[in-house]
């Protein structure tokens, strides 16, 4: 009997390992539910339409960044509506098939595969988290499909290739802006917390370089594992060097846990500076983030008034996040490029986009793409969280 037990014990150990390996991807890698079962809040068609020009989009409609993903979809819907009111593209209606990435790279790639092979989309817009956008862009590049990044900021995106474009500025500028903003406010020591993915690494690198150059000191750098339910150990480490300010960036619902636990641990008595403040506060309990300052993309350019009005009219509220304008601009840019190319062939569209993108007036301001297809000037703002709203910081 003892041998039998030993065998059973060994078998259990093996099974435990197998389960861990199977679930090692974290996030939504346990994705079994098919696309059709995902809720689509706005009732937007997820099918490609006959006789229309069909584009694709991969957005985090569920998962930690679902709040932002839903807002990104609003930008797309508004752009499609406006384009079709003005006669569509190539004399046909424009349609954008929106798929859910579940906030995970594996599902984002599945969604992209479907958009490319089933819907024949020449252009795919996505995603939000750099950890998903980079593999998505690389996949599309290999498939020869145009990729537009409307929400990620990792510098790695610039290296994807000639089919990849961004309507949002990358962290090479965001990290520097943050470092300057933090230091100007008199915080000479900072603890830094970001997700352990290409976004987090990118922003840490550029922040650190600039902050140390102007005389700041980083007391601790923590790269947290995404999708945890508990961040107390990370927060304890973060507080150890007694920094003047906590500089952090985290995705919606992960940020909610971090803010809650920091509040419980009494860490919110010190100033917190959020990188992309709308992202770090969108899902957090109000009391836990009151008074936080942070930077964010300045989401409305000089020509963005009509977009802002259309958004308010359609959804009856102010912008839910700062990111809908970038998906709006992505669709607008794609439509204009297709029109200019005179065809929806990806190769032609990419060539046209490089031309159109040199000087494009979007809802989020002037967009001028560099030779890597990346937005060169990105306006940022320093904001403060007050009673549920983000207001310009004093």
């Amino acid at each position: 009997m003892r041998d039998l037990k030993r065998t059973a014990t060994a078998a259990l150990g093996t099974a435990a390992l197998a389960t861990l390996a199977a679930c090692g991807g974290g996030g939504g890698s346990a994705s079994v539910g098919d696309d059709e079962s995902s809720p689509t809040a706005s009732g937007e068609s997820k099918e490609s339409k006959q006789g229309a020009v069909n584009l694709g989009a991969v957005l985090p409609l569920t998962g930690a960044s679902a709040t932002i993903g839903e807002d990104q979809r609003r930008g797309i819907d508004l752009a499609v509506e406006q384009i079709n009111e003005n006669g569509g593209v190539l004399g046909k209606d424009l349609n954008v098939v929106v798929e859910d990435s579940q906030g995970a790279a594996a599902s984002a790639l599945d969604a992209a595969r479907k958009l490319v092979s089933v819907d024949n989309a020449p252009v795919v817009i996505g995603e939000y988290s750099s950890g998903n956008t980079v593999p998505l862009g690389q996949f599309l590049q290999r498939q020869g499909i145009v990729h537009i990044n409307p929400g990620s900021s990792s510098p790695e995106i610039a290296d994807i290739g000639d089919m990849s474009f961004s309507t949002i500025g990358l962290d090479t500028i965001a990290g520097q802006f943050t470092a300057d903003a933090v230091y100007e406010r008199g915080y000479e020591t900072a603890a830094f917390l970001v997700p352990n993915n290409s976004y987090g690494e990118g922003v840490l690198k550029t922040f650190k370089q600039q902050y140390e150059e102007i005389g700041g000191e980083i007391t601790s750098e923590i790269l947290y594992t995404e999708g945890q339910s508990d961040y107390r150990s990370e927060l304890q480490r973060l507080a150890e060097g007694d920094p003047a300010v906590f500089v952090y960036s985290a995705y919606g619902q992960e940020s909610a846990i971090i803010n809650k636990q920091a509040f419980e641990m009494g860490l919110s008595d010190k100033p917190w500076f959020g990188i992309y403040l709308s992202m770090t506060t969108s899902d957090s309990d109000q009391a836990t983030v009151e008074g936080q300052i942070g930077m964010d993309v300045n989401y409305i350019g000089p020509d963005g008034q009509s977009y802002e009005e259309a958004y308010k009219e359609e959804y009856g509220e102010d912008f839910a996040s700062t990111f809908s304008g970038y998906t709006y601009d992505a669709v607008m840019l794609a439509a204009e490029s297709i029109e200019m190319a005179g065809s929806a062939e990806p190769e032609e569209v990419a060539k046209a986009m490089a031309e159109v993108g040199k000087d494009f007036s979007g809802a989020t301001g002037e967009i001028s793409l560099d030779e890597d297809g990346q937005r060169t000037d990105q306006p940022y703002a320093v904001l403060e969280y007050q009673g549920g709203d983000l207001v310009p910081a004093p």
Partner: protein
Amino acid sequence: MFQVLIDSAVRASELSLVAIGLSLTWGVAKFANIAHVQYAPLGAYLALLFVNMFALGLVVGAIMGILATGLIGVLLYRAFFRRLVRASSATALIGSLAISIVITAGIQTAAGPSPRPLPLPILPGIAFGGAIITRTQLIVIAIATTVIIMFFAGLMLTKVGRSIRCVMANADLAEASGIDTARIKTHVFFVSGGMAALGGVLLAMDTTVSLEMGTVLLLPVVAAVIMGGVGSPLGSVAAAAILAVVENLILDIDFGSLLGGETTYVPLNYSAAIGFVALILVMLLKPQGIFGFGGRRA
């Protein structure tokens, strides 16, 4: 140091509640129920569902979630595992792995993949001796300790408890001496499922309930059960406590300074490896468990 003790106490409470049931059902039904760890998120999600759907208070919702999970545990055993274990315990183990995946997928379909908090007020923690403990954590430790003591009192002092111990020691002999082993197994699966669900609810109160909760629990819980000796609930509580202390202590030690160098801590991501190392060591050196109770069984 205080902080290490507090964190360990919370962790040990949550691990023990799940580990006791796995050890118990393994001892009684002679197979390792991988799906057992999924009863923790299942219970927490059901509690959340009852709270949201019927606008119940958290306490009532949690009790309903715990009872429902206990029933699901019984149903799964009677409809599924009981048949598989007749083939062999390895078959039942693989079957429970499948059930585990189905539970996770079911939760994801119903509740989505994002972690969710239980509706509790967010209050600043209580500071003492340089450490911080939240009110929720105090409640977690109190509830877990009470339930664990009640469980062992029941196991040691009541007639049903004695029957359970008899079935664990030798099911055939127990049957022959007039114990209704089928009924006893049903009791065991109900109590085990309920305790795992309670562990999940407490863990969710302390942090959040997430899809990964069960998977993340699997390694430390299995490690605790094997370290404690299969079929020895008391051993698994002791092992869970040891694991919890080691997990927290190892993150708190500045190894760099100890060796006379710069401040160097073990990277946080490595804490998951501690259960792993413990499991491997025990399986290599003393597969019957470090507390050795396992050898008592036939």
